[in-house]
């Protein structure tokens, strides 16, 4: 029996650390990894709420056809989108590196070179 709030606090901590990485890191690959960390934090709260709604069906919003298992389906879709995003984003990073020879975001300040 773990309180739901513990999961949500862990999710909040991971999300905040991801935002810190996004704001403070200067390497474009590390910034991209911080985005993945934020997606993972959101996934954790999706799964925690799915389990919570399964064990407490009375707290479901009335009228909405919400299935408790939809949380898992949403995590699945988030992972699919994250995979697509990683493929395209890393290809963009490679093409940026080819033209600029740097991974520092402060030196990538023009859309076209």
């Amino acid at each position, binding site marked *: *029996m*773990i*309180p*739901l709030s*513990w*999961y*949500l*606090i*862990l999710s*909040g*901590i*991971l999300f*905040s*650390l*991801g935002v*810190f990485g996004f*704001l*403070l890191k*200067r*390497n474009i*690959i*590390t910034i991209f*990894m*911080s985005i*993945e*960390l934020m997606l*993972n934090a959101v*996934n*954790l709260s999706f*799964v*925690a709420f*799915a*389990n*919570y709604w*399964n*064990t*407490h069906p009375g707290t479901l919003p009335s009228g909405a056809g919400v*299935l408790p*298992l939809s949380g*898992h*389906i949403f*995590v*699945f*879709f988030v992972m*699919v*989108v994250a*995979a*697509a995003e*990683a*493929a*395209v984003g*890393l*290809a*963009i990073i*490679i*093409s940026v*590196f080819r033209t600029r020879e740097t*991974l*520092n975001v*402060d030196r990538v300040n023009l859309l076209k070179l």
Partner: protein
Amino acid sequence: MFIHQFLFVVFGLICVAGAINLLVQRHPINSALSLVVVMASLALIYLLLGAEFVAAIQLIVYAGAIMVLFVFVIMLLNAGAEERSRGSQIALFIGVPGVVVLATTVAWLMGQSANRLGDVSISPSDFGETHAIARLLFRDFLLPFEITSVLILIAIMGAVVLGKKESQ
């Protein structure tokens, strides 16, 4: 029941330590490996929530496929230690305090409403099993599933076009 709380605390601390290590390390390969640690311990936390399928695809897709892609790119670009540069002053002086305020607000609200929210536990039913998810995914969420497969196809083509060398 106590073992669940113990496991949650252990893997939650590993998660947070890995995420902090991601921020502290200056070399991208160290950050990538600590992100793998975060994802693997998150998969164990998903198991504590009874989400077997999600835990499996967390390990296979995230810790396996996506992070291998990251490590490939880091090695391909021969990325060295991060350069120190000043960066954005707005991000430093508005973004960071904003995130601190957001995190403390979330933690405070959750601490306040902990008793009203209640507990989660592993249910004895087939909740989170693969066949239940598959029934939902291929029946109720069939159209979104097909749309994501088109999205993946577009992403593959985009990655090939972007990664292709410019023709002379």
